């Protein structure tokens, strides 16, 4: 059984326009993937593809107008949707989040150490001197120099990389089963980014946790993840092991993403992409990528079936396989 499996998740944003008409933005359109224990999963895709929304759905952080209209999220076989949304027994304890902007995600009015202690007390995992010792130990594990002094530091005294390390410590302090990192290193410098990711991966792997890393940087996925899912317009268009997707990308969108990296441009020249992401308020039928796809034919007006290949490499396309006009 997978640690977490998402089955056909649909999330809509339902709101009223100024003309009092109901408007529905179909933000997630049948997202399915699963993460095994001990695995690091990378989710890539462009802005608006639904990467963070998927994470927020898992964490039960959706607020109106966002609404799960269909699908299930199973965590250890339990449907997360039936668990009370305000519950602290899973969120923050068994499933934790490393947010995107480290500087704004720490409480500016509480010392670092107290924040780390409070996380444990709130979730009932430790208290008193145990919680203090554990906080200190976590800061050591994420390689913060002079951790005892940092326990008394304020958030504004930390550099970006240091703040991100504190957030990693905070997300791991309750020994979760799943850590979701939402663009964990955007805004950090190259040298710092690599070290923060090294630390994260080492800690996740050493305690057999699972992790979902949301990013738009294919380099991070290539080196820090075991499996990856490529999202487009609220659906997973390709999923598989990192090695097999980079070696043999099947979906035209995955191919275009890889072709857009400067290294590939230097090798093969620019590939023209004419259109932006589709309008979520007015999604067409059939394959959502067809307007941008160079392979699109009339059959693409019907929804493609998920095609499974060996080793769990899956894709959602009528014409999977090597690019024909490469």
């Amino acid at each position: 059984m997978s640690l977490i499996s998402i089955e056909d998740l649909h999330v809509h944003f339902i709101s009223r326009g100024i003309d009092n008409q109901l408007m529905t933005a179909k933000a997630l359109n049948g997202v399915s993937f699963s993460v095994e224990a001990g695995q690091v999963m990378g989710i890539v895709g462009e802005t608006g593809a639904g990467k963070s929304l998927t994470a927020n759905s898992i964490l039960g952080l959706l607020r109106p107008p966002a609404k799960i209209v269909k699908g299930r999220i199973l965590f250890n076989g339990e449907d997360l949707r039936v668990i009370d949304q305000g519950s602290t027994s899973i969120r923050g304890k068994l499933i934790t989040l490393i947010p995107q902007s480290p500087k704004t995600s720490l409480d500016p009015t509480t010392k670092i150490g107290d924040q780390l202690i409070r996380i444990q007390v709130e979730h009932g995992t430790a208290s008193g001197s145990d919680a203090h010792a554990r906080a200190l130990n976590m800061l050591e594990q994420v390689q913060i120099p002079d951790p005892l002094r940092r326990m008394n530091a304020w958030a504004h005294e930390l550099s970006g990389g240091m703040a991100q390390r504190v957030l990693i410590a905070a997300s791991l302090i309750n020994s979760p089963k799943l850590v979701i990192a939402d663009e964990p290193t955007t805004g950090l410098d190259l040298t710092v980014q690599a070290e923060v990711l090294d630390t994260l991966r080492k800690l996740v792997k050493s305690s057999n946790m699972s992790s979902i890393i949301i990013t738009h940087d294919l380099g991070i996925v290539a080196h820090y993840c075991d499996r990856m899912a490529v999202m487009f317009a609220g659906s997973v268009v390709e999923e598989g092991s990192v090695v097999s997707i980079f070696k043999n990308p099947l979906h035209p969108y995955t191919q275009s993403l890889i072709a857009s990296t400067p290294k590939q441009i230097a090798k093969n020249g620019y590939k023209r992409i004419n259109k932006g992401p589709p309008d979520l308020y007015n999604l067409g039928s059939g394959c959502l990528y067809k307007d941008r796809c160079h392979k699109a034919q009339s059959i693409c007006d019907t929804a493609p079936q998920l095609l499974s290949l060996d080793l769990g490499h899956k894709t959602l396309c009528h014409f999977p396989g090597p690019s024909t006009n490469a």
Partner: protein
Amino acid sequence: MHNPLIELCDLTKTYPSAGFDKVLAVDHVSLKINSGESVGLVGESGSGKSTIGLLISKLIPVSSGRIYFEGQDITDLSEKKMRSLRSDIQIVFQDPWGSINPRFPIRRTLSEPFILHTDFSSSECDREVKRLADRVQLPQSTLERYPHELSGGQLQRVSIARAIASKPRFLIMDEPTSSLDLSVRAGILELLNDIRRETGLTLLLISHDLDTVELMTERLIVLYLGRVAEMGRTSDVLSNPVHPYTQTLISSNLQPDPNVDLKRIKVNGEIPSPLNAPKGCLFGSRCPLFKADCALKSPPLVELSDSVGKSPNHLAACIRVQDFSFKIL
């Protein structure tokens, strides 16, 4: 040898800090950019790369040193005299949302350069704006829209259109693609490449993305804490980095290919605050090869000698530059 288009001599920028302290944002930087060249400027945050862009475009005053444009000293040029040069030196900022007037429709934003720098009639102006929009592949319908109605990629195209409107000779781009999606990014880079080919524009590309710089530039300057650590032809610097900092930077760059091995160089901590920069070599506090003599004095930029597998104009500021045994990668 013709005059370089841009020349910086001992350029320094200090910012006042609490008490009598001063922050050295740019520390005695000298460099030349030839006409038609495309030069990359890389470094971590706080390395002074954006400050150099602002100094050259004269948006902030220089503390000491000189800036020459085509041999003419423009360091102390008055705002009024500078105005005629503004059409020649243009800058595109990192954040398109913050650098385009939110209360102007795009047409007005794009007309502004013509109103300022030419005496076009309004119909000529309109025609030029349309041409510009076509040039950067913006649909004509966007001209009537306001910035908040456009996507990031479209807005960055507006920024580029505005910058090339006055037919500049020198274009500074401060992280033009870092806030954009990968597929959108490729389109912007292609556009820049086309514009360069058509107009022979000289480009200074400020970036922290080594892959983008490799694709777009011929020469590369690596900055660390406001000083030049290494410079040379982009291909030389990236394939044969000499300064330990450049080597570290390259080793931290994650190639989007799981089959490329990571050869990570471990450094100590993060870039120090310019307020308590280390003595001598600035990279000393993090350098894996640090020895006591590194802290004695600031290492000068020297050209690599033949024995080091050199190439012309490849310079590095490290006292161990000549003994090549320190190659870490």
